């Protein structure tokens, strides 16, 4: 699979529809095949937030338990939107995780970033090398930039690049017009580019004046950013 084209083929839908029918009829092989198709994508979305394989596995399992129970009870009727449904469940689970971490941080009464909380308690064994120690690595920098996007932007990026959803699926899932979503995605990419260019991932955000977990909106810097001005000239065409 190309890393620059994360979406999966359209003809997958017919195959998935058939698998869903078989799984609902208690065909375990079909169920395993479904999980084989989708669990890496669900897992990737979860792991992007928790940086912990065990927690991500648990979230993934929780997502599929929900799917399995709904299929078994006949509550789900395939209408060609399985992926949107699956990733809505995933998104809700990830949101639960984010809320839990924020709550924990408040209870602790510290100034630590919510994102650091869970990582500090139970990171992957190799998380340090993957996410922290490679400050000079562009991918590591981009991971850090991603963590500083506004929540809605980050969610959209993760649905697209970790979950592999098409913009059309994301449009259904997020209940947003396709054009709006494309523009939002482009602006989010631009924010990431600006964060990378500003080198603000090498500290806690002091350079950019942003608080952890949030970056400046592009309009705040609009008149100072050549890149943003270029985007403004082009964004109508993009939509």
């Amino acid at each position, binding site marked *: 699979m190309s*890393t*620059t*084209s*994360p979406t999966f083929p359209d003809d997958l839908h017919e195959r998935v529809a058939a698998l869903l029918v078989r799984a609902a009829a208690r065909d375990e092989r079909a*169920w*395993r095949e479904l*999980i*084989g198709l989708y*669990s*890496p*994508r669900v*897992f*990737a*979305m979860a*792991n*992007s937030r928790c940086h*912990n*394989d*065990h*927690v*991500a*596995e*648990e979230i*993934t*399992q*929780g997502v*599929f*338990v929900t799917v*399995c*129970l709904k*299929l*078994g009870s006949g509550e789900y009727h395939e209408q060609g939107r399985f992926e949107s449904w699956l990733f809505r469940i995933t998104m809700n689970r990830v949101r*639960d*995780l984010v809320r*839990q971490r924020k709550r924990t941080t408040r209870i602790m009464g510290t100034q630590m970033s919510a994102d650091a909380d869970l990582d500090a*308690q139970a990171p992957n064994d190799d998380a340090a090398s993957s996410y922290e120690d490679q400050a000079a690595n*562009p*991918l590591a920098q*981009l*991971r850090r930039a*991603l963590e500083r996007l506004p929540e809605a932007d980050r969610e959209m990026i*993760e649905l697209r*690049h*970790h*979950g*592999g959803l098409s913009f059309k699926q994301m449009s259904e899932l997020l209940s947003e017009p396709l054009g709006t979503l494309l523009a939002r995605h*482009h602006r989010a*990419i*631009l924010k*990431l*580019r600006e964060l*990378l260019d500003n080198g603000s991932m090498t500290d806690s955000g002091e350079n950019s004046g942003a608080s952890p977990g949030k970056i400046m909106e592009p309009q705040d810097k609009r008149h100072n950013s*050549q890149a943003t001005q*270029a*985007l403004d*000239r*082009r964004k*109508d*065409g*993009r939509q």
Partner: protein
Amino acid sequence: MTTNHTNPRADSDGQPLSMADASLDSRLGDVETMLGQIGADERSRLTPAMFDRIARATWQAEMPNVIPALQFDGRPVEAAKVARARAHTIGSGRALRMAAAIAIFGTIAAGIVAMRSSPSTSRQDGNEVASKGGLQGASGYQDNDSVVAVTTTDPDLALDLALIDALWKDDSLSTDDLWADAGMLDTSSDVTIDQLLGGGATDTAQGGAM
């Protein structure tokens, strides 16, 4: 103005991109490429073992194996469905002890034990303990941040699940109280879960097979 994908040096009207536009387009493309790499990296972290646990555990969670006659605390126990237990008051050590006790009693034929009472005590610990107790393919799931679930395909587990449910719901109860309430352990034997965990005391536990 949009990029012309046939000729990336031109926009959709065939007009050449300005150098600034082309440079920006390229640099944004770099970000998308890297995001694709990150996404692929994250997807590849799901190992075959993880996949197997997820597939098995989720399938078992749906097994419609119900014993309607069996009740605990006035509530029907739907064995082999999902016994849910709130874990927000329980310490991780206690959850682990319970997992070990379940495993030692040997009543879970194909069971799942999940314990996520704290972020640092996760499925990894649960799997390890359950594995030592003889569980095959121990796995589990957490329904949300305060719910732990245990599932099994073995209908004989009904009372065990209810017991776990009760224990996790009321942290003030001692394990001995609960075992005694359920008639699973002769409290006069003074066998504690800790002793069970320590080994050598398993034979003195009575009522393991209900």
